[in-house]
């Protein structure tokens, strides 16, 4: 009978997997459980929890920590799980039945700190000495039996990469027992204890090799000039690949949902049900899924890049740029991801260790030009520079630059006022350069993609339905007097246009229009801006519906008719001043309800979401006002 059996019977046997960052813990975890892992949050925290069933147990992959005795949220979560106060959603919280401590064979001495802390928990435990393949190559020899004697528990050498020793490890976990030796608890004593054990069990056959390549790469990647250049090259390549490759599935999704919507519309009699299904639900789901290829590619490539070890170096390069503005180098992945979509970007801010740094990152992330803004940028730059592709490209690029500047300035402001203090200086391990773990990258991408679909999908669909309803009702018939010159098609368009004006959305637009008058927007544009709250890309189709009563924007003449749309008094709608003002508004404004919800959730309070919404609206409004008024004055 092992000591495990004497523990009180609970819902399920749990095994907590504990270890330092960069010890290959996740690779080992994936090797043990395969693709069965579930990703969720530890309830009430922003720390990600992965857990999986293995035999009759649940394995919980804890966040990587250097020590349990720190104030960082990762350490707090580990302490709570080990104390039985916290468990991933769906797992009953109780003291783990066993701890699996994963340590790095090539960094044994440092890793003994967390082993000592685990021993002090007095729970059954097993130590996995991982990265055995690498240690062998480096000529490092570890006496596992002796280490087991020193620690008083089973010690198994293994490699999550090659699978060596994993079977032994699993049978050792089944028989895990409480260590029959104790470990010191005081930091000084732990260090001395670790050094003693290290000298007893480890020996390097030869002196460590001096890997010149790693040193050279490190110095290049963190160099003040070369580091920035290589960063720019790598990131440009990354984005080029994302936009280039994602375009293919995005077009497919677009045409598939278009065809499917048309098919459903053809199957059902015209009426509210068909409208709800086609314009509300199918259009809403299509509008969300279309961003999935970009998000999936972005996360996959970022995970690969992280796997090579480059991201740790890039974080230092970008830290130099971001720190003067009160953001940490850790904010780089969230801000980069926000260029695809602010929602996964804000979710990625969990990786920022300092709470104030993390809040600042979340608050400014939506300033990054997400892909949903692209259709609007395209429309307006084409209207502004119809004959010059070069100027279109320049204007397009400056949209991105303006967004980044607004983010940096907002962060500076927020760090001088409500989130006072400098960002935390970085201390980070620079992991070895290696070939990325494809399986881990694929699993992470799958998790992120599903999280995006669940969170944004449900929300965007709900908002699309509400907006569809607001736009479609009240559906009072509009009588258009047919004259000999008008065709049936024109009558349909005029009816649709009149309906749009009469709908709830049209009425709201009419009521709010005076607010946007100083920016040069008429009622139609106001409705377009309001509709954008569901998702920005709705703007183009909303404008199309209002201007011509048809949302078939593929048709060249429709874009032309938007460009040549007139106000109620017959003057040109998209004047130079109005177009610039609208462009500035779309760069800076928070026109995305799902982002507001995600901010509230990730920042831990609605006040942060309201602050973000208020500040971005204020900045967008004043920016657009200045642009419109000065262009009007100058011309």
């Amino acid at each position, binding site marked *: 009978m092992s000591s495990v059996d004497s523990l009180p019977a609970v819902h399920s046997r749990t095994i907590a997997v504990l270890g330092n960052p960069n010890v290959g813990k996740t690779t080992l975890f994936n090797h043990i459980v395969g693709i069965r892992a579930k990703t969720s949050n530890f309830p009430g925290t922003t720390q990600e929890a992965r857990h999986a069933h293995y035999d009759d147990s649940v394995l919980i992959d804890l966040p990587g920590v250097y*020590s349990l005795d720190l104030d960082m949220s990762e350490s707090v979560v580990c302490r709570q799980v080990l104390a039985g106060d916290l468990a991933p959603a769906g797992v009953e919280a109780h003291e783990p039945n066993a701890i699996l401590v994963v340590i790095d064979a*090539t960094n044994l001495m*440092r890793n003994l700190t967390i082993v000592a802390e685990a021993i002090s928990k007095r729970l059954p435990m097993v130590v996995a000495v991982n990265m055995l393949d690498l240690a062998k190559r480096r000529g490092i020899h570890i006496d596992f039996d002796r280490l087991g004697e020193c620690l008083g528990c089973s010690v198994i050498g293994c490699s999550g990469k090659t699978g060596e020793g994993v079977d032994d490890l699993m049978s050792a976990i089944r028989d895990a027992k409480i260590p029959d030796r104790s470990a010191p608890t005081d*930091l000084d004593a732990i*260090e001395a204890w670790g050094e003693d054990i290290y000298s007893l069990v480890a020996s390097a056959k030869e002196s*460590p090799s001096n890997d*010149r390549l790693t*040193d050279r790469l490190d110095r290049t990647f*963190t160099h003040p000039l070369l580091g920035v250049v290589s960063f720019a090259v790598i990131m440009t390549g990354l984005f080029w690949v994302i936009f280039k490759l994602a375009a293919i599935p995005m077009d497919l999704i677009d045409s598939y949902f278009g065809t499917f919507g048309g098919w459903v519309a053809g199957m059902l009699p015209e009426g509210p049900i068909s409208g709800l299904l086609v314009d509300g639900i199918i259009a809403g789901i299509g509008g969300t899924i279309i961003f999935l290829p970009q998000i999936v590619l972005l996360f996959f490539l970022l995970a690969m890049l992280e796997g090579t070890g480059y991201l740790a170096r890039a974080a230092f390069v970008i830290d*130099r740029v971001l720190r003067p503005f009160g953001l940490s180098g850790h904010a780089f992945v969230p801000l980069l991801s926000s260029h695809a979509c602010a929602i996964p970007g804000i979710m990625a801010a969990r990786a920022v260790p300092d709470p104030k740094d993390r809040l600042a990152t979340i608050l400014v992330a939506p300033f990054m030009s997400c892909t949903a803004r692209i259709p609007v940028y395209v429309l307006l730059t084409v209207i502004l520079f119809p004959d010059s592709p070069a100027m279109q490209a320049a204007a397009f690029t400056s949209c991105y630059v303006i967004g980044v500047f607004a983010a940096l300035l907002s962060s500076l402001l927020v760090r001088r006022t409500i989130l006072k203090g400098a960002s935390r200086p970085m201390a980070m391990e620079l992991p070895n350069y290696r070939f990325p773990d494809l399986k881990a990258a694929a699993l992470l991408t799958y998790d992120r993609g599903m999280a995006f679909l669940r969170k944004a999908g449900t929300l965007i669909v709900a908002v699309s339905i509400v907006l569809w309803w607001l736009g479609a009702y009240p559906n009072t018939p509009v009588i258009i007097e047919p004259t000999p010159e008008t065709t049936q098609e024109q009558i349909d368009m005029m009816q649709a246009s009149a309906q749009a004006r009469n709908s709830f959305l049209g009425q709201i637009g009419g009521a709010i229009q005076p607010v946007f008058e100083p920016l040069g927007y008429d009622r139609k544009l106001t409705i377009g801006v309001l509709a954008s709250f569901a998702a920005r890309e709705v703007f183009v189709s909303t404008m199309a519906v209002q201007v011509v009563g048809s949302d078939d924007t593929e048709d060249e003449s429709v874009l032309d008719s938007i460009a040549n749309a007139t106000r109620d008094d017959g003057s040109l709608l998209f004047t130079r001043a109005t177009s610039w003002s609208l462009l500035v508004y779309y760069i800076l404004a928070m026109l995305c309800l799902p982002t507001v919800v995600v901010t509230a959730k990730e920042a831990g309070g609605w006040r942060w979401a309201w602050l973000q919404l208020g500040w971005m609206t204020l900045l967008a409004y004043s920016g657009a006002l200045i642009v419109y008024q000065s262009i009007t004055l100058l011309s």
Partner: protein
Amino acid sequence: MISTMQELPVTEQKRDLRSPIPLTQLTRGQKGRVRIEDTTEEVKLLRAMGLRPNSEVTMCRLGEPCIISLNGHCGDGCRLGLAKEIAGRVMVHVDQDTDQTKSE
């Protein structure tokens, strides 16, 4: 033989008397022994990351960030990147051996 016996304690003494300097003042390739005593949150993290008292570190890259190695050689094994601000607060005793190798 006798002379070396007499000299050794002097070098030992000299090394101990030499006042510690901030990590940022090491030159590239120079080794130092870490003097770290506080138990502030930052120091606790650095110690858990392997920057423990009396451990030997090698300076691999100066500047922002500075890169140090905990395994005696730059490049191989465990390397830490530290913001200048943090590195400036970590004190080290310069290792005499590397000091001499450098001056030779």
